[in-house]
C-alpha cells in the first residue's frame, strides 16, 4: 500500500509539472459542454415550408397559421402547383411542402376524412421525423378540436380526443439538446480521458525507460498499476462533477435521480476504461501509438452508442456491436438516473452488461500486463 501511494504521489507530481495536460483535462468538460449545448443544436425547428393551398378558405388559412405557431414550420411562401414544390425542395428553398386539398373546409364541416399531404425532403432523416411527427400531432389536435368544438376552447389537448396521434414527448418536453447532452458528455469524456491517460501514462514509462526501473523494483503489478491509475480515477470523477455542475449552471440540467447511484455506477464504467487503457499500453510501443489507439476506440463510442445518433435508428447488427462498448450502457444509466430518476433495479440489464464488460477487460489486461519487459 505504501508503494502504491508512492507511485500515485509521483504520478501527481509529474501531472502538476505537466500544466498543459492538466489544463486540458480540467477545461475540457466545460468547453465541450458549451460547444455541444449551444452550437450543436439537434432539435429541428424552423423547417422551411412552402404551402400549396387549393382550398383558399378561412379554415385552410387557420391551419397554416397553427402550423407556423408550433415553431417547427416557417412558412416561406405560397406556391401554385406540385411542380413549384418540387423546385423549392430541389433548390433547398424549402424542406417541406404542404398541400391543402380543395374542398378542405367543406370536407371538414361534413366530417369527412381529410388527407393533407406533406412532401418532405428526406435527405435529413431527423428533419423527416420531426416534420411528420409534428404534422401528425397537429392533425390529431385539430381533429379533436373539430370533433368537440366547445371543449377545444378551454382544453386545447383533451385527453379523450377521438384521434389521438399526438406525439407525447416525456422527460424533455422542450427537446433541449443540453439536457440530453450532459449525461452523454459525462460518458464520452470519461471514455476519452480514462483510456487515453492510462494508456499514455504507462507507455510514457516504457518509452522513457522508467518502466524497466519499476519492473526491477519489488513493487507488485497491482502496486505499479494501481498507483499509476489512482490519480486518474480522481480526475475522472472530477470531470464528471464539472460536467454536472456546468450543465446545471448553464443549462439547468436536472438531476432527477440519485447522484450517489450515478457515482457508484460510474466506478464500473471507469474501471472498464482503465483496464482497456492498460491493455492498449501493453500493445502500443510509443505514446503516439497509444494516443492513436485511444482515438480509434473513441470514434465508435461517439457514433454508435447513442451519444449523437439515436440508438434505435441504427441497423440491428450495429446495435449488437454497440453492446460491447461500455458507453452504450453507461449512457442509458446516466440518462435514466439524471433525467428520469431511475433506480438501480430499473437498470439491471445495463448494470449486468457493464459488470460483464469490466470483468472481461480486467481479465484481458491482467493476462497481457506482465511485470516483465517483454
Amino acid at each position: 500500500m505504501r508503494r502504491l501511494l508512492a507511485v500515485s504521489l509521483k504520478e501527481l507530481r509529474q501531472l502538476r509539472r505537466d500544466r498543459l495536460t492538466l489544463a486540458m483535462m480540467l477545461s475540457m468538460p466545460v468547453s465541450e459542454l458549451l460547444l455541444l449545448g449551444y452550437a450543436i443544436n439537434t432539435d429541428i425547428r424552423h423547417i422551411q415550408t412552402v404551402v400549396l393551398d387549393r382550398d383558399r378558405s378561412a379554415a385552410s388559412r387557420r391551419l397554416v397559421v397553427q402550423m407556423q405557431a408550433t415553431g417547427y414550420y416557417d412558412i416561406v411562401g405560397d406556391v401554385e402547383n406540385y411542380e413549384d414544390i418540387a423546385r423549392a425542395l430541389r433548390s433547398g428553398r424549402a424542406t417541406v411542402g404542404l398541400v391543402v386539398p380543395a374542398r378542405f373546409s367543406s370536407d371538414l364541416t361534413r366530417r369527412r376524412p381529410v388527407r393533407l399531404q406533406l412532401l418532405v425532403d428526406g435527405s435529413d432523416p431527423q428533419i423527416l421525423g420531426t416534420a411528420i411527427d409534428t404534422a401528425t400531432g397537429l392533425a390529431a389536435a385539430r381533429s379533436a378540436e373539430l370533433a368537440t368544438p366547445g371543449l377545444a376552447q378551454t382544453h386545447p389537448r383533451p385527453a379523450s380526443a377521438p384521434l389521438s396521434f399526438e406525439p407525447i414527448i416525456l422527460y424533455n418536453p422542450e427537446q433541449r439538446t443540453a439536457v440530453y447532452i450532459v449525461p452523454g458528455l459525462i460518458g464520452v469524456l470519461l471514455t476519452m480521458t480514462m483510456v487515453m491517460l492510462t494508456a499514455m501514462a504507462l507507455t510514457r514509462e516504457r518509452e522513457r525507460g522508467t518502466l524497466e526501473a519499476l519492473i526491477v523494483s519489488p513493487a507488485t503489478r497491482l502496486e505499479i498499476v494501481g498507483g499509476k491509475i489512482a490519480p486518474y480515477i480522481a480526475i475522472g470523477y472530477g470531470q464528471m462533477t464539472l460536467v454536472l455542475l456546468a450543465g446545471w449552471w448553464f443549462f439547468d440540467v436536472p438531476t432527477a435521480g440519485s447522484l450517489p447511484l450515478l457515482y457508484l455506477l460510474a466506478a464500473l464504467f471507469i474501471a472498464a476504461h482503465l483496464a482497456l487503457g492498460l491493455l492498449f499500453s501493453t500493445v502500443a510501443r510509443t505514446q503516439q501509438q497509444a494516443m492513436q489507439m485511444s482515438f480509434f476506440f473513441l470514434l465508435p463510442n461517439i457514433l454508435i452508442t447513442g451519444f449523437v445518433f439515436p440508438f434505435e435508428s441504427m441497423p440491428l447488427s450495429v446495435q449488437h456491436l454497440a453492446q460491447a462498448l461500455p458507453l452504450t450502457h453507461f449512457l442509458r444509466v446516466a440518462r435514466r438516473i439524471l433525467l428520469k430518476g431511475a433506480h438501480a433495479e430499473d437498470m439491471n440489464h445495463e448494470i449486468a452488461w457493464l459488470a460483464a464488460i469490466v470483468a472481461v477487460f480486467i481479465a484481458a489486461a491482467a493476462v497481457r500486463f506482465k511485470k516483465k519487459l517483454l
Partner: protein
Amino acid sequence: MPDSDELVVDAQHLSRRFGAHVAVRDVSLQVRRGEIFGVLGPNGAGKSTALRMLCGVLDPTGGRAVVVGHDVAREPERVKANIGYMTQSFSLYTDLTVAENIGFYASLYGLAGAARRRRIDAVLHESELAARTGQLAGELSGGWKQRLALACATIHQPPLIFLDEPTAGVDPLSRREFWERIHGLAAAGTTVVVTTHYMDEAERCHRLAFISHGEVFDSGRPDDIVARAGLAIAEFIVDDVDQATYLLQGLPGVEECAHYGRVLRLAVHGGEPVAAARARLDRAGLAVHDMRESRATVEDAFVAMVRRERRA
C-alpha cells in the same frame, strides 16, 4: 578483491531469443561476493539482454540463473528486493526533482520513516547531490545524472548492483570519481556487475567476461585474459606511418596495426613477427627512429578477439 567464494550470481547456460535472432547464447557466469565483474562486448553483443535476464526483467528462453541465492525464474521478487539496477539509458523521471526521484525510489523499495530519511541523507551525501535536491533531474548534466542514477539504484543498500554502461557520455574526471565510488562499494562488500566499452574501466574490474554475438568468449582476471590472448606489442616511431601501416598490415602473425601520431602500434602473436616487421620496414627504406616492446592491454586482447570473431 573478493574475499569469499560465495556466489552472488550463478548463471547457467542462459539464452534469449528474439524471434529468430539469438541475442544471448548459452552464457554461464559466476560472480563472487565483493567482486567487480566487468562485461565487455561490441554493440549488440547481448550485454544488456544478459543483465536484464539476471535482474528478472526479461525471461530467458533457456538456462537458469541463481542471483543473491534465489532462482530468478521462480522467485523474481526475492531477487528484485536485493539488487540495484542502473539501466543503460537514463531512466529516472526527468520531470521530478533530484529529491523527488530519490524519495520515490526509497518508498518503492519499502523504506519508511527515520530509516528512509537516513538513507536519503546518506546517498545525497555520498553522491554530493545534497546541494542540488531541488533541481529537475532532466536539467542535470551527464555526470550528475549518472550520480543520481547510482544514488537511486543503491538507496536500499543492495548486496548486488548491476550497472549497464554507467559512464557512457561522462567526462573523464567524473568517470574516475565514479569508479572510486564503485571500488568503495565493493570494498564494503557490495558485488558489482558492470558493462562497459571503456578499456581503462575494464582493467579496473576484478574479473571480466568478453561477450560477442551473445556468447562468452573468454572470462577471468584481466591479466589472465591478456596473457591468454598471447599478444606481443611493439611500437615503432616512424616518419611515414601510412606507408609503414600499408607494409605491415597482413603480415603473417600481425593481429593489429594501428597508429597514433608517429607511433605505429603493432600487436602480434609471438616474438618472430616483430623481427620480420622490422626487417620489412628496413628493406623498404623507411626510417625507424625507435622501437620498443610494451605490455599488451585488455584493449589489445578485446580488439584481437572481435577481429578473430569477424573473420570467422
